[in-house]
């Protein structure tokens, strides 16, 4: 009995020594001489699912094109696309996986502002640059050295939307239905700031919990407050539900929404009822003839599936363009950082981007040491239900409301 115990102990000790010796060293995560790893976290399964595929398509096409040109500073880009479910918990799981398991160098896209806030501590701890989509004002005011936003934040878009409405009709009564989290609250802040700036106010604001599709209480409140316009800071399903509710109530109120809801599936869900629906977005619609968009189409033709994607009128084209803007910024940052690539040099590289030409697809990209959010401008689009697409109502403008 004693000898058995002794033998087992010795065996175990031997195994342990073996395992100890397998300890590995470390370099810069996600970077080798030949390769750099980037992650794209989007939603394939949650409330923002309709955005996941087009954004990852854009990433895949662009990365394929860059790698075909020989990569950046001799390094090919390995792209890891991961489902983040848009919610904070699932985003945290996804971020943990890509940083700790896959070992990526930077997260070039994260869908969902709540999730972005949730993974920020993780990114800071592990020195990972993150580019959130639909990001919050706090990312540029006061700002965070690891966070870059290559397009416009919620606050600015909401401000522009309200300014547009009040410019058309200074006496308009504006209500707002917003998602009760970081994303929606920021829209509310922007809307309220713009309203105040134009000497008006948001007369009624009604929040809802993410995932809700029953809006009778909110719409009733709006009707009682006698609003003419409702600003929607929602996702697609909620916008569709609100349009349906509006029809149900027989009420012809005007709607203006944020960029995430302006996609062709909206027409599938509500049909002609979407006529006149407005939205504010940083990117031009895909069917327009602009150099930036044409370039994207060329690359999509070569590396992607053009008929199913940019060539397909039912495709959420400008989500593709949104993703495009992010990966362009991310890769440009890599170019500027050069051969010696570390998290710090990458930050410097990104900060040195100045007026990078997006070819009219959206606002040009400029970063700086104190400027991690590239732009404040957006456009206003209008839904054309008959042709199932969106037309430009007002071109790229910066909101007049002070943004800092």
């Amino acid at each position, binding site marked *: 009995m004693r000898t058995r115990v002794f033998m087992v*102990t010795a065996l175990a*000790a031997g195994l342990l020594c073996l*395992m*100890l010796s397998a300890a590995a060293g470390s370099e810069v995560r996600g970077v080798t001489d030949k390769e750099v790893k980037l992650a794209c976290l989007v939603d394939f399964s949650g409330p923002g699912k309709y955005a996941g595929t087009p954004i990852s398509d854009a990433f895949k096409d662009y990365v394929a094109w860059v790698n075909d040109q020989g990569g950046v500073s001799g390094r090919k880009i390995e792209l890891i696309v991961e*489902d983040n479910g848009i919610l904070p*918990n699932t985003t*945290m799981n996804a971020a943990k996986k890509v940083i*700790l398991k896959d070992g990526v160098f930077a997260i070039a896209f994260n869908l969902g502002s709540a999730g972005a806030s949730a993974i920020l*501590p993780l990114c800071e701890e592990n020195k990972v640059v993150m580019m959130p989509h639909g990001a919050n004002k706090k990312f540029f005011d006061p700002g965070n050295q690891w966070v870059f936003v290559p397009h416009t934040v919620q606050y600015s878009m909401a401000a522009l939307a309200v300014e547009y409405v009040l410019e058309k009709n200074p006496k308009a009564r504006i209500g707002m239905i917003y998602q009760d989290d970081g994303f929606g609250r920021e829209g509310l802040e922007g809307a309220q700031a713009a309203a105040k700036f134009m000497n008006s106010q948001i007369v009624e604001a009604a929040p809802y919990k*993410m995932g809700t599709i029953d809006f009778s209480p909110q719409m009733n409140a709006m009707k009682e407050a006698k609003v003419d316009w409702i600003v929607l800071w929602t996702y697609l399903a909620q916008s569709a539900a609100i349009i349906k509710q509006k029809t149900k109530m027989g009420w012809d109120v005007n709607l203006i929404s944020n960029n995430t809801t302006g996609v062709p599936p909206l027409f599938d869900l509500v049909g002609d009822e979407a006529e006149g629906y407005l939205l504010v977005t940083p990117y031009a619609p895909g069917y327009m003839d602009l150099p930036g968009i044409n370039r994207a189409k060329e690359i999509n033709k070569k590396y992607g599936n053009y008929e199913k994607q940019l060539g397909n009128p039912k495709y959420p084209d400008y989500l593709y363009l949104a993703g495009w803007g992010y990966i362009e910024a991310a890769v440009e940052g890599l170019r500027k950082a050069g051969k010696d690539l570390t998290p710090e040099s990458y930050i410097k590289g990104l900060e040195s981007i100045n007026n990078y030409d997006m070819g009219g697809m959206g606002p040009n990209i400029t970063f700086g040491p104190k400027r991690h959010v590239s732009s404040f401008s957006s456009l206003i689009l209008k839904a054309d239900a008959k042709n199932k697409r969106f037309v430009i109502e007002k071109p790229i403008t910066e909101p007049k409301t002070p943004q800092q």
Partner: protein
Amino acid sequence: MGGKFETSYKSDMALFKTLWVKVWLAIFIAFIIVCPYFLSLYQLGILNEISIAVIGALGLNLVVGYTGQISLGHGAFVAIGAYTTALASDHLGLPFVVTLPLSGFMAALLGMIVGVPALRLKGLYLALGTLAFGFIVEYVLFHWDLTKGDMGMAVKRISIAGYEIRSEKEYFYFLFAFAALATLCAKNIVRSKFGRSFIAIRDRDIAAEAMGIPLAKYKVMAFGISSFYAGIAGALLAHYQKWIVPGSFDLSLSIAYIAMIILGGLGTILGSILGAALITGIPHGIVYATDLVKDSYPVLGGLIVDLKMGIFGLIVVLALLFEPQGLAGIYRRAKLYWKTWPFKY
């Protein structure tokens, strides 16, 4: 059962019964100490999640497995622990050594409050009552300005006497120590007067009362202890993730904990540990598996969420249909077989 004949009360009650057990334990401890040196950060992260889950599962098994009270609201108590520590360390500036037990006590307090009405409710009704409680707690946390709802709350790092816990490795040792401590306490509770009273209540509560066990006191205590464990687990989770939202603590968390103790084995300590490890590990295992085949079948990427849920449900159902005693039951049978071989009985 198992072939060991105890001759003294002391040896019957001993925590570590044979020399073998002590040796295995020593090897296990040594293994834990060297773990972080050859496991990847991601794998350490998984183990950390398991440590936290073990604490919660131990608590739940005490009230469900040992006392027979069905609680479908365990997630709510975890939430209370998490938010207590977040609020206490943020608004009141209290250090971790204070907020941790505070979280446990807050959760225990609410647990005992829930335990009182539980005295009147049996089986199904108790289950539904705790379920409703869980929903209401989630609702309150979401809509209260103080807890900031879906905006989420940032939680500070753990700092004890000036030393901050930062890396996965440090968390690993820290959380494991807590899990081990929790296990020890649970084992002690079970072999004490309280544990025996709990088991009597589970088996036949009216008879237990007739024998002189104060039902009210012990039922409420069971809820209190179980919620205390949940609160501690919640506080540790909050400091580990450094960001909490009410949605992390919803019905699916309560169900996950129930699944842990069913799969592991109701009414056993080992079962809580095994169940926690398995239920926490399976989604990660699916991630590993899908990563391996992702390149050949890219479509799998979007299906991971469904697979995780489906496999989870399947395992719960299969475990209940074919092995109601759970993993601990399998382990016991295997041990018995090993010990009494080549005899069948």
